[in-house]
């Protein structure tokens, strides 16, 4: 990296962070891309196929992940977090650099030696006993793991919350992982590292969370194994997922699949409670009340896509989507919606009220507002399109950078129409869903927009310094 030039810091290695990093790095500036998880890729890596083109998500994402991993101008800092950001000193009318501290958590694996062979994970005593976060708890992994096979960097990491040695001080007589590792890469002595950086511009690309469906108990999530969320369905449907892409529930292929949209989105019934919590506290905590007033923007399309995937994989299955509106607004989206309908996906207008069991089926109860009467639809699989919410650590990230939040809990942009990527802090820019829900094309555009803003700052600083 050419450190004679001012650098940029990208916080978050999902598609937004990756795109912003690539644009800035391609222009010739050094970039630090800090990602909390052991691999970059974010949510997009969890997806099966993307709408409306039905491109395999990993196929279009991994080239970018690889680019970011090998780009001469990008230093990839995974399994790391930004712990402090000191604002730049002002002086002589020029703005200086942000001083940033990044904590690189110990993987307990020497990345220079690890080849990603996986022998450690195969040998681990906890193999098959740890719920995989990447697979949304549908699959299990070992205590030493990579989040997914195409991870960048493909280096193993020991999960300190479940590793027997790290939690209890002992792992049987011998470290099975160490014994299995042909490269001698495992090192439990490894310490965290604090790295000091000076950067001229910061892009925040920390992404989003999803509503906990247990906050809507009427749908039976967590009680009925046949009820799952959209993101869980993505993992189920993924060819590289826990079931190799087979849509199987309770060991059987579902015959009746029902999709419920707007689970937690477009809800206002908790307004009074939200107001009572006080404005600041209400930000982002709305989600904790089980409902958010805004539209999550992507669910209509991903539900149509899910329905298509089900019809594709299970030609005999009956698929129903319950909806309030169908928001197929983007390029090619309405045509995709038309296509899915022609594939015999039945759209029924009406927001279901509850899901309950009847024999070995579930029943989804709703009013079909086109028929004008209540209906019950049987299902073997119910998929909930849960709301996109601000990340639970928004308050901490806000405090770190001095960022404001909008009433919906996401980061506040400088102006809702004309400055969608500028935060209210000079030199700090917003990219992707941390500013509000978006689909992939809008996220990429947003991230490139943030890069443009960052580039201006960096070029200016280059001129000032020379």
């Amino acid at each position: 990296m050419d450190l004679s030039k001012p650098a940029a810091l990208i916080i978050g290695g999902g598609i937004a962070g990756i795109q912003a990093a690539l644009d800035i790095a391609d222009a010739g500036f050094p970039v630090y891309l800090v990602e909390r998880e052991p691999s970059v890729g974010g949510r997009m890596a969890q997806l099966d196929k993307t709408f409306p083109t039905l491109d395999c998500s990993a196929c279009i994402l991994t080239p970018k992940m690889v680019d970011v991993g090998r780009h001469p101008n990008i230093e990839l800092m995974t399994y790391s977090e930004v712990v402090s950001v000191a604002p730049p000193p002002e002086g002589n009318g020029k703005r200086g650099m942000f001083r940033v501290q990044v904590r690189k958590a110990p993987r307990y694996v020497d990345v220079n030696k690890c080849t990603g062979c996986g022998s450690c994970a195969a040998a681990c005593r906890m193999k098959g006993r740890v719920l995989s976060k990447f697979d949304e708890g549908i699959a299990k992994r070992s205590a030493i793991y990579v989040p997914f096979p195409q991870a960048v960097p493909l280096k193993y990491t020991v999960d300190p919350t479940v590793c027997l040695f790290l939690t209890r001080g002992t792992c049987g007589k011998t470290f099975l992982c160490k014994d299995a590792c042909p490269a001698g890469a495992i090192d439990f002595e490894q310490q965290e590292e604090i790295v000091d950086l000076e950067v001229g511009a910061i892009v925040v690309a920390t992404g989003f969370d999803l509503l906990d469906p247990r906050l809507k108990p009427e749908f039976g999530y967590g009680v009925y194994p046949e009820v799952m969320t959209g993101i869980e369905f993505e993992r189920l449907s993924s060819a590289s997922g826990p079931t190799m892409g087979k849509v199987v529930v309770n060991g059987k292929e579902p015959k009746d699949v029902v999709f419920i949209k707007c689970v937690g989105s477009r809800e206002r019934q908790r307004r009074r409670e939200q107001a009572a919590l006080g404005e600041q506290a209400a930000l982002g905590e709305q989600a904790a009340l089980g409902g958010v007033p805004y539209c999550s923007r992507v669910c209509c399309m991903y539900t149509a896509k899910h329905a298509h995937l089900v019809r594709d994989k299970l030609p005999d299955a009956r698929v129903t989507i319950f909806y309030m509106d169908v928001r197929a607004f983007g390029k090619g989206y309405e045509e995709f919606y038309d296509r899915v309908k022609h594939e015999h996906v039945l759209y029924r207008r009406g927001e279901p009220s509850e899901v309950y069991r009847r024999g070995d089926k579930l029943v989804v109860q709703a009013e079909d507002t086109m028929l004008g009467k209540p209906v019950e639809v049987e299902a073997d699989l119910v998929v909930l399109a849960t709301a996109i919410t601000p990340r639970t650590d928004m308050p901490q990230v806000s405090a770190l950078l001095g960022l404001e939040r909008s009433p919906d809990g996401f980061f506040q942009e400088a102006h809702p129409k004309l400055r969608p990527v500028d935060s209210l802090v000079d030199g700090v820019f917003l990219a992707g869903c941390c500013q509000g829900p978006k689909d992939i094309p809008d996220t990429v555009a947003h991230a490139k927009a943030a890069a443009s803003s960052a580039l201006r700052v960096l070029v200016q600083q280059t001129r000032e310094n020379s």
Partner: protein
Amino acid sequence: MALKTEPMVEQLELMGCIQCGKCTGGCPVARKTTLNIRSLIYNMLVEPELDVNAHPELWDCTCCFTCVERCPKDVRPAELVIGLRGQLVESGHIPDTIGAALTGIFRQGNPTGIAREDRMGWANGTQIKAAQEGCEVLLHVCCTPAYDPRVQVVPRALVKAFTAAGLDFGTLGTDESCCGNEVRRMGESGLFEMLVEENGELIRSVGAGRLVTVSPHCFNTFKNEYSLSGGAGEQGSGRAGEQGGRGAMEVLHYTQLMAELVEQGRLKFSNEVKKTVTYHDPCFLGKQNHIFDEPRAVLKAIPGLKLVEMDRNRERSLCCEGGGGRMWAEGTNLQERLAFQRVREAAETGAEVLAVACPFCLLTLEDAVKVQGLDEKLRVMDIMELVDLAL
């Protein structure tokens, strides 16, 4: 009778429907009957079976195809009505009068059931060339103009005009049979396919370059559902695509040919017809085939004639309720026919004459004028009757 919905949903691709309501919204009879085509489509989608017999309102549809013209997802809702009627026909659940009309067409080639041999009675003894001998323009007279005394004046006037223009034209004489447009729309697809085959062969054998019809209904089916114009039938006729070339004919409604003759100066109007006229766009000519200007051009060419427009003209012309088999059935809807409202609208323009270009419109609108006692104010005339006065 319980119909399994899936096959028809599949065949008609009803899944594309987004329930926007434009079909029912624009349906001229929806206001007067329980027929709700959007709701029917939805029921086809959500229920595994439909009791077709429980929907006698299916006979209320006039097949004006407003729904088809306007559906933003190209679902063609009226085809569902036709398809469901087909089920009723198969099970014999049809109004007697419709049954009689179908039988007449089958036996005598026309819905009145009057003998085929009498089909040329309208010509009043005038010798008309038999098209089978070869001609450039084949005139298809159509059943109602052939047999109904009120309407017979129209083909007579056409003959006079064609002769004056020096056209080489002929008719199929008593070999001519019902075109089948209404047959298909009444759900009798078997009879329709038979007519398409037999008529098609006969018409093609004539070798004429052009086929001209008196009725827009015949025009519609010959143009879009037979394979006469060189392309595949669009609306699911019996034939698959036949290429153009050999036997490819131009299919026209008489107003198109008349407009051409007027423009080419082959028709001279020597008499003045000093009347204020308003023109009613027939559904099968205007709405469905977008022919709005030619009939008006003919009227405007008549010296002394003043053309005024109704508010609901062209694409919004109010269906007279003569189509879709409604000439032979009352359906479930015993309320005032839309024709009654239509003639009131015509009268409001101050016109003396309500001009039409369709035999069904002629009959239903005239009936509406009589029943409402508007004969003093308004006279219903076919365009050719006005042309006849001008020639």
